[in-house]
Structure formats: C-alpha cells, structure tokens
C-alpha cells in the first residue's frame, strides 16, 4: 500500500468507494467542522476538506482535516496551486503527514475573482501563486513519497505517504484533450481521481470509453463526481454557469415540474425539491457505478452534508467497508 489510508484500502478491496465533501466555515470556531464530521462519519470512506473553495477565506484544509481526523472521519486534504509556492506546499505536506493525514487532492483552485460573489467582498485583488500547476504538484507528492526527495532534490528523512488525488472535468473544453489531460495526471502519479459533477451520464460514458482505451482505468481509481441538486434553481445554475457541467433538459424539467407542483408553499416546495434531488442523485450513482472502469463516487452535498446519510443508504452503499487490522 502506498499510504495505508482508508480510501486506498476500500479501493484495493474492489468495492465501490464513496467520498464526500466537507466545507469548512468562515470562522475560527471548530464546532461546525466537528458537527459535519459526525454527520458524514460512517457514510463515506473519506471526506474532502475543501481548500478555500471559490477562493473564500475559511478554516484551512489542513486544519479542517485534522479536526475531522480527531472525530474519526478520514479526510482528503485538498491543496490548491493558487495559494502556495512549492516551498509552502511541501512544508504543509510534511506537516499534514506528521499530523496523520493520508490523502491529498491536488487542484488548481478557483480564481480569486470568484471570492467576491453574492454578499461576500472576498479578495479579488489578491495575488495568486501558481508556482507549480496541478500536474507538477502531483509529481512533487509522488517524488516525496516514492523517492523520499523534495522537488529541489534534497532528501527527506521520513517521506510523507500520501494517497495522491487529482480532479478531472470529463465534459470540459477542449473536450478531445480531456482524456489526454487525465492521462498526464495519471502519468504524473495520481492514484485516484474525483471528477467534476456529472449530470449528463452519456458525456461521461463517452469520455470513460476514451480513458479505458488509453488504459487509464487500470492505473487510477476514477470516482465519478455528483453534486447533489438541491432545487431547480441550483440545477439551472449548474447548467448555465459551471464550466464543464451540462445538465440534460429532461433532468431540469423533472425538477421544474416538482417545483411547480409544490406551488407557493415555500417549505413544501423546498422539501419536495430536496426529495427529488436525492432521488436524482441515487439514480446518478447507480448509472455512474455501472460504467466500466469507474471505482466509486464522489458525492458533494454543498452546505447540505445531512443529505449524505440518506443518499448513501438509499443507493445501497451503506454500511461502508471497515478494516480490522
């Protein structure tokens, strides 16, 4: 085993892996992370602790990961290339490993422009870093783990043993390059992949076929991403505004019908749309897990972590595998 993480063990067991997501708060209070960890514990094999998603300042991924770990939830620490140079990255990787973190997801990170959205002022004028890109970061993690060496060539007394993750946007532009982009991540050293949210399973199927033709499904564990649609407006937003995400018309209409049927009663409308959103998610999980080469699902219930228990149970993915040794 490369890292000995729970996620790695589940993947090695051949059972479909389930990862979820935990968004830390804009607060120095640890309780929200602790509560969310309790909600997710037992219903996923590991949970991503986002690294200042949409470039908004929050409890850092490394600290959030340690808080989750203390509650018995295995974290996937996320690390963006946006905020750190290679010195800070490697220092944080050593620190994270020393604190018991075993999974790390390498991502480019949303541009700082996204931090100023809605009521948030954010830090759109921040200077980003991008000293290394995602594929280079994957390579750094691999070099540290497998060669016991820093990027610059200095030896590490004790190397950090991470299960290395990366993302994939199968439906993104330029679409014919996406399988090759995945191949580069695999060649750089990725052990697992979490994809961008999939609503249009046909697009994902077609891209998975290309990935299989490149033999990538045998070298990396691909977890299909699902962003739980909570209501019609959110799904519409995902379709129109999130890069690389396409929602089939039939799915949009399905949730719109539920919204319309609920009428003016806001509470009822919310409940009915959420129930339908969960149904859609469960269907998506089944469809995605049927695709050859897919090793699991990454379920993101954004600011709605309580939905995970119901989804995972309804999808027949509960209880999660446990290991005694």
């Amino acid at each position, binding site marked *: 085993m490369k890292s000995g993480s729970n996620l790695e063990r589940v993947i090695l067991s051949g059972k479909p892996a389930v990862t979820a997501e935990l968004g830390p708060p804009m607060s120095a209070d640890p309780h929200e992370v602790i509560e969310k960890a309790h909600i997710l514990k037992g219903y996923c094999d590991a949970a991503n602790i986002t690294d200042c998603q949409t470039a908004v300042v929050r409890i850092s991924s490394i600290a959030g990961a340690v808080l989750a770990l203390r509650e018995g939830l295995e974290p996937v620490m996320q690390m963006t*290339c*946006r905020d750190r140079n*290679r010195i800070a990255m490697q220092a944080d990787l050593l620190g994270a490993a020393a604190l018991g973190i075993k999974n790390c997801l390498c991502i*480019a*990170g*949303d*541009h700082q*422009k*996204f931090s100023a959205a809605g009521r948030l002022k954010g830090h759109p004028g921040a200077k*980003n870093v*991008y*000293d*290394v*890109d*995602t*594929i*280079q970061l994957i*390579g*750094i993690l691999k070099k540290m783990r497998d060669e016991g060496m820093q*990027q610059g060539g200095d030896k590490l007394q004790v190397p950090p043993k991470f299960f290395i993750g990366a*993302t*994939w*946007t199968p439906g*993104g*532009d*330029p679409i*014919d*390059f996406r399988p*090759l*982009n995945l*191949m*580069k991540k695999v*060649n*750089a050293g990725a052990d697992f992949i979490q994809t*961008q949210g999939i609503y249009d399973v046909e697009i994902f199927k077609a891209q998975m076929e290309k990935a299989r033709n490149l033999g990538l499904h045998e070298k990396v564990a691909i977890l299909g991403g699902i962003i739980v649609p909570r209501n019609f407006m959110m799904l519409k937003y995902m379709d129109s505004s999130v*890069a*690389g995400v396409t929602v089939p018309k039939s799915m949009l209409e399905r949730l719109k019908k539920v919204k319309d049927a609920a009428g003016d009663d806001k509470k009822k409308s919310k409940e009915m749309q959420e129930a339908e959103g969960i149904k859609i998610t469960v269907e998506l999980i089944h469809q995605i897990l049927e695709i050859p080469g897919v090793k699991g699902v990454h379920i993101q219930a954004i600011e709605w972590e309580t939905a995970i228990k119901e989804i995972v149970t309804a999808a027949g993915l509960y209880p999660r595998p446990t290991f005694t040794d």
Partner: protein
Amino acid sequence: MIVAKQKPFEEVWNMVKNFKKVLVYGCNTCVAICHAGGEKEAEILASMIRMKASQEGVDMKVGHAAVMRHCEPEYFDPLMDEVRTYDLVLSTACGVGVNFLAQRIGNIPVYPGINTTFYGAVPKPGEFIELCAGCGNCILHLTGGICPIARCTKSLMNGPCGGTDRGKCEISQEVDCGWYLIVERMKQLGNLEALLEIQPPRDWSTSFHGGPRRVVLEHLQDFEEKEEKKA
C-alpha cells in the same frame, strides 16, 4: 511593444496639484502607438491639467514635450536642461521611462502619468492584447506559439484547468482560455500528442522572481570602448 493605459484624471490631478511648474513629458514609441502617452496625449493631458488648475484657482504653469524614446539617454539627454527648469515631470512614458529619467534627472521628482500594462500586440485598431510575460525562458516551441504563462490566467504549464467554458476562461467570457487556444493550435499543426509530455516545475529565477534582471553584451561593450579610445 509595451502597452499602457491612461490613468484616471483625478489621480493625475492629485499628483500634480501642489506643484507650480509641471512638464508633461511624452514618449513617441510604444506608448504613442497605444495612444496612451505620445506627444499628442502629452499635449492633451497638459491642457486638461491647465484647465483644472484654472477651475480650481491654482497658479500653475504646465508645459509639454516628447522625445522618441525614454529608455535611451541619447534621446532625452539633449532636452535635459530644459526639463530641469520644471519642478515636476509627469512622464507619460512607460514605467521604464519613468525609472530611467528619475535616475538621471537630479533633484526633480518624476511621476507616472500612465499605467504601464503589458507586452502586447494590436490585433485591430483600438485593441491591444497581452501575449508575452517576459519570463526569461521561452517555451513557445512547445505550445504552438501561444504562451501558457501570459495567456492562461493561472499560468498552467501542462494543460487547461477545469474552468474552460466554451473556449473562454473561468474569469470572463471576454477572455480566451489560453489552453483552449494551445490545444486547437497543436491540432492544426497535427502535433497534439506533443502536449502529453509533462513539463516539470519551472525555474522561475529567469523571471522577475530571480530579482531585477540585466542583460550584458560584453562584445558590444568592448567594441564601444575601443571606438571611444579611437575617437
């Protein structure tokens, strides 16, 4: 060329309002082509300052001048005595010109009249686009002549991020995704496979991160020295 933009007039006025004798000093190369700081723009800016001074009841003399290049002394040295009769030079040259003049002028302040913006080209009249980041270690042969450092918002070296949307960058539908362009260009060249090679972490020491840069051509310096001796 170097592309620049005019500063908001209020900002310029706040810089100059406490001086008595101001020279708006243009440069007739790059910043003239992008209509930011050539002789014409220097003249217009000088008139605007004059008008504002008159409206505000400020006693101020404002002149204007321009030379071909602010980055070589042979162009601006001949005018230096005249320039030194002012108590402020508002330079509408690029930042190179402002720095260079400030270093040579003596005890007179040189303020920037424009914002130096990027190295760019003119795809059509009135439009200027950034194409090079001046990183000091060119890899354009690997990316179809399209620079990932200057043209990808995140300067990614190995392919696009997940933010490409209909060929545009996640930051704006007005900004092309650099990697979308690179992939399309490599397809046109029949060489998409070349992008499969992983580019390792860059050595940024050739860019500004290695400190302010200097290029020395010893053979040219030797030649000049010899010529001087002969003379």
